[in-house]
Structures are given as C-alpha cells and as structure tokens.
C-alpha cells in the first residue's frame, strides 16, 4: 500500500493526480465545514455577482454562492461515481467468474449481453433510459453501473480463465477444496486486483457522464448542485455572468484530470501489464 503510494508519488504526473484527488475528496468530506454559505440559500438582491470576499467565486442567477454549491457538488460527483462503480464491480466480478466456469453455451450468452450493453455509447444509453423513464439520482447510478458491467466482466472472465487451471488451484482441488472455497478464497482476491485499477480509471468517466446528463437537464434533479447543472446554468446565463461557467468547468477539469492522472499512475505502479493502451 505505502509502496504503491510512494511509486505514484514518484512519477510527476502521478503526484499531480494524487494532489488533485486529495483536494477533491477533502472538498467532498469537509463541504459543510468549508462552505461559507448554505448551497441552496437564495439571495435575489445579490444575483450574478463576480468573485468577492463574501462570495469567493461569485453568485448564480438566484444569488446562491457558487463556491458552496461547487463544494457540495463534489459530493454528488463522487457519490454517484463510487456507488455506480461499486455495483458494476461486484456484478462484473460475479458475471465474469460465472462466464469462465459456465458451459460454453451460457458463456456465449453472457458475452453477447456484454456486447449488447457496450454497443450503446454509454452516454446515449443513459440518455435513452432517463428520457424514457424520467430523471432521478438512483436511476442514474443504476444505468451507469449497467454500462460499466461489461468492462469489469470481461477482465474478470479473462483473469479467471487464466487462473482456472493454474497448478495451485489444481492442488487445492486435489486436496478436496469445494468449488465455493476455490472461488471465494482464491479466484475472487486474485481477480479483484486488476479490477481495482479499472475501477479507479472509471471514476473520471462516470464523473463526466453524470455531469453530462445533468448538463442536458436529465441528470440529478435541481436544486441539487450537480456540477453539470451548474455548468448548464452558467452557459444559459453567459451574457449575465461568465463566472458560473468558468468555475463549474474548472471543478470538472480538476476532478477528471486528477482522477485520470491518479488512475494511470496507479495502473503503472500496480501492474504495468494492464497497460493495453498507449
């Protein structure tokens, strides 16, 4: 653990990523302590204010403090990412292991389902579902996790296939270990490692999807201060004040850049073999 962190810290871009990630996570955890105002407090007399001492990043179209809203928005961005990735992780792990152990015919079915899910560009699938079923925080978390399942499932299956006939599992089997023990004690921990790296690299993707849906007005419903909603408000009122758009975009940039750099450094530190891309 410490060795991994040290290796991430050792690479220049990894260090930048780690710093940004810590900033974002602290922002989410300490939002109530840091935020100078209630994120939903309306002050109509003070609309479209630029950055001042009282409102460090200015105010929006209802006079709400942008800095406080962005801080609370961090919780939405991280909450949605962590929950949906967690669900996709578990489902992908189970389906992937199952695919590796099931007879070829059923394995084919699982793989085709993965193919169908990934045949939708993930944003388009989420858009279709939310458009038809109506927006909502939990719906978004569920849809996003569905779109991520094949990602985890394919890697879990490949890892399981590679492990399945390895000598140490063969030995366990000969010693009389039950299939459940083989899977839970040996396969799951061994397969999970690479999946953790995948999970960390999916965080910025999910942050972008959630913000994108909210930007389109079909994401987390207002008045929740999702970064995407703030960016959309900022874009709509661009002729009144540019600050909302500038800072909401900056928050998204910091978070996605930070998690991407961190994820790549983590991958290089843990297992350079996972590096299938440039």
């Amino acid at each position: 653990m410490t060795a991994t962190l040290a290796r991430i810290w050792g690479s220049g871009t990894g260090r930048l990523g780690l710093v940004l990630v810590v900033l974002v996570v602290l922002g989410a955890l300490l939002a109530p302590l840091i935020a100078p105002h209630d994120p939903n407090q309306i002050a109509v007399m003070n609309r479209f204010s630029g950055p001042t001492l009282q409102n460090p990043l200015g105010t929006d179209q209802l006079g709400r403090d942008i800095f406080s809203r962005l801080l609370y928005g961090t919780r939405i961005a991280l909450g949605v990412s962590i929950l949906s990735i967690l669900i996709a992780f578990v489902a992908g792990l189970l389906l992937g292991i199952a695919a590796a152990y099931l007879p070829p015919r059923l394995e084919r079915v699982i793989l085709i389902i993965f193919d169908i899910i990934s045949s939708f560009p993930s944003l388009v699938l989420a858009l279709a579902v939310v458009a038809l079923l109506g927006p909502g925080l939990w719906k978004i978390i569920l849809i996003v996790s569905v779109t991520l399942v094949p990602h985890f499932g394919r890697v879990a299956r490949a890892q399981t296939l590679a492990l399945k006939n390895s000598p140490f599992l063969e030995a366990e089997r000969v010693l009389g270990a039950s299939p459940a023990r083989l899977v839970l004690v040996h396969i799951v921990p061994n397969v999970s490692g690479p999946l953790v790296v995948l999970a960390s690299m999916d965080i910025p993707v999910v942050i972008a999807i959630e913000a994108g849906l909210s930007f389109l007005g079909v994401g987390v419903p207002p008045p929740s201060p999702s970064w995407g909603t703030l960016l959309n408000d900022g874009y709509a009122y661009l002729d009144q004040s540019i600050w909302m758009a500038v800072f909401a975009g900056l928050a998204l940039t910091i978070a996605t850049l930070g998690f991407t750099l961190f994820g790549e450094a983590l991958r290089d530190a843990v297992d350079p073999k996972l590096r299938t891309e440039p």
Partner: protein
Amino acid sequence: MSDTMRYVISRIITTVLVLFGAMLVLFSLTLFVPGDPARVLLGPRASPEALQALSERMGLDLPIYAQVGRFFGNVLRGDLGVDVISGRPILNMVMDVLPYTIALTFAAIGIAVAIGVPLGCYAATHPNTVGDRITAVISVGFIAIPNFVVAIYLVLIFSIWLNWFPVLGVSRTGGFWDQLVRLVLPATSLALGWIGYIARLVRSSLLEVLNENFIRTSRAYGISENRIVYKYALKNAAIPTVAILGLGVGRLLGGAIFAEIIFARPGIGSLIYAAINTRNYPVVQAGVLVVVFLFVVTNLLVDLSYSKLDPRMSRRGGTGGRMP
C-alpha cells in the same frame, strides 16, 4: 473454411445479434414509460377519440408480443414510424440532420489526425525529453477533460472574449465558407480528446516499430533518420491508429450531442435532445437506434478491415483502456 472466413462470419453474426438485442432493449424501455404514451404525446387535453386513434396507430392496443413483432418488422423495413407532432416520417427527420453530424464527426477526426499524428511522431523521436513529457501531460489532459467543458471554454475564449467566431450553429443560408467557419469550434471541442489519444497511440506504436530489426538494418545502411521514421516506421505504426479512427467515428456520432447543443447546430444529437424535452418518445427511440446502428456497424467494419490489415488482431480483440 479458412480461419479468416470463420472470423468474418462469426463477427457478422454477433453484430446482428447485438443489433437485435439493442432493439429489444429500446423496445422494452418504452413499456416502462410512466403513463400512457399516447396521452403523454398528445397532452392532457386530448379528446378520447384522438387518443384512441393514436393508440391504434402506434399499436399500443396490441398484445406485447405483437408489438415487438411490429416494431422489429417496421425497423427491418426501414420504417421508423411517423412523428406525431409534425406528421413526417421519422426516418426523413433523421436523414435531414444526419449530414450535419457526419460533417462534424469527420471534421473532428480530421483535426485530431492533423495535430495528433505529428505530436506523437515528435514524442516518439524525442523519447524522455522535456518535449516528450509535455506532450504526454497535454495528451492526458485533453483525454481527461469532458468535451462539453472544452466546448464551453471554447465559447468563452473565442466567441465571447476574443469575438473571433460566431457562437451559433449552422446558417443554412450561408455559403460553404460560412459553414466551414461555424464548424471550427464544435469540431475542435470534439477533436481535443482524440488529439491526445492519437498522439499517445502514435508515440507508443512508433516506439515499438523503431525497435525492430528492419529499422536497425535501415540505420546500418545509412538511410536518413527522417526517411526511416516517416517512410518506413510510420507506415507500420499507422495500423492501430487507423483502427482507432474507425472506432472514433462511431463514438463521435453519439458524443456529438454536446457540441450540437452548445453550438446550436442541427444534428442527430440535437434531434434526440429536442425530442426528450418534448417527450416525443418515438423520435428518441428512433434517434438512439440510428446512433447505435451506426456505432455497431462502424465497429464491425473496423474489426474486419483491421483483421485484413493485420491478421494478428483478429485474435487479440479490443484495444481496451480509456478513450476520450
């Protein structure tokens, strides 16, 4: 039957299955639409007769298996239904705006290649220098930042602050030059991520090729370094890049939605978006279906041509990793 033939056939069968599955998913979503779809479309004050007529026209009174059959039959005949609001066939509505989305997509890919390939070549020929590091950081940054954030910053910088480009979309009356100028910002917003991705891809595949024996032999023969890199190595390194470009076209068709909305351009993305806002579900369904169709078919074509370009690929599958 040869291995290649078998691969081609299995790939085509999978694609057909995937398309059918996608259609099934899109169909079943409509079953969960809260409320009566006919009422949602016509609004609360529609007369019972109008509701009845629309339900019959949409086949809502049929049992579910008949509705599924009807939906598949219509789609296979290229009939995506008729828009209730305008009375136009939905396929025509899609075809009207599709050229704008395709122009945007190809412009974005063009920009990405024009900038990404030279950046990647520079980085690969100067490995581990400051320039290489800077290219790497810029590439990750471009890949990481969502394209709608890029689009809004482009508007802020070039339209509002510098006032170089018009904010709004396509002037249908404008000439070719006018259309081209209005394409610059939206295409750039989409291209940025792909510039980063292509630069990294070209760098790594070029570095790999430059280590091979035939390059060392060429060096030993005293062929100039420029000729080696740009004539011999780049040709080999281009194969994965070409494949990624194909995938890029497919992904961009769906991803263009933000650029189309932010820059108020007509296109398949803004068609779907407008249909969502008016609760025009048949148009949403058809629009998404067309995007999925284009995406899946481009992927198939890429895979098939890839296995032709480089037979090793048919056994390796996917590129994996984070795409813009």
